[in-house]
């Protein structure tokens, strides 16, 4: 799964204003839809109760009971839609923001850790950092935001000449 870097976030914000930086979990439209669903369901139940309690004939009370059941189902659907909308927005933002832990697990498996350990014990520091065309940040190769990316490796000077800034996470 891809990660969102700082330079990609504006694009995310443009594609889905409600879920990217500065967005909201639920929009006003979601809230109105939920309030209308739950409110309408509640009103239907109250009206059904009023009609039912005003009639002493069992046969004529069945209709209001059915309507009340419909009202509670309608309100329930409104609640479910509200929660699903929130979960979806949250999931989209989480996927856009956070790294894929499975990919990190593969990248930082036993062999990868051994390589890093060997390089560290030898006192070797890599001079290459990852970045790409159109990006405004460059990253260390082991940066979590660079896992699974096919960005080109270049020296710091190349990145800085291209106008890229150091990543705020790995601080290259």
């Amino acid at each position, binding site marked *: 799964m891809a990660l969102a870097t700082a330079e990609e976030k504006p694009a995310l914000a443009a594609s889905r204003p409600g879920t990217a930086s500065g967005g909201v979990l639920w929009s006003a439209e979601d809230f109105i839809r939920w309030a209308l669903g739950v409110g309408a369901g509640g009103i239907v139940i109250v009206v059904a109760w009023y009609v039912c309690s005003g009639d002493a004939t069992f046969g004529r009370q069945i209709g209001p009971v059915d309507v009340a059941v419909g009202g509670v189902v309608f309100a329930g659907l409104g609640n479910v839609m509200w929660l699903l909308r929130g979960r979806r927005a949250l999931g989209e*933002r989480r996927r856009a923001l956070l790294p894929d832990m499975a990919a990190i697990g593969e990248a930082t498996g036993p062999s990868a850790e051994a390589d890093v350990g060997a390089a560290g014990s030898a006192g070797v520091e890599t001079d290459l950092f990852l970045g790409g065309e159109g990006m405004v940040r460059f990253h260390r190769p082991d940066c979590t935001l660079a896992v699974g990316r096919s960005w080109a490796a270049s020296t710091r000077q190349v990145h800085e000449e291209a106008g890229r800034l150091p990543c*705020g996470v790995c601080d290259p």
Partner: protein
Amino acid sequence: MTPAKWLQLQWDRTAAWVLVAAGAIALIVGWVGVSSTAYSAEQLPYIISGGIGGIFLLGVGATLWLSADLRDEWRKLDRIEEALQPREVTPIPGKADTR
């Protein structure tokens, strides 16, 4: 933190508890009402107000509680995103950047 402040900050969870409690009370009152009479015509209004109304209140309360959890997670992502922002480097006067 005072209880009043907590209630103000956790308004959604407070409302959820109130609604769930109201729903439980409605169910109990409905059950008492239904069991107090043998006539179906007198039981049905209790089924609507106590039973269906109680389920409605429980549903809205549960929704508010789950919404509060989603908002918590959203705020956590806000903090993560804030931490991912690059740190601002203020140059020290008279000291050249040797990097």
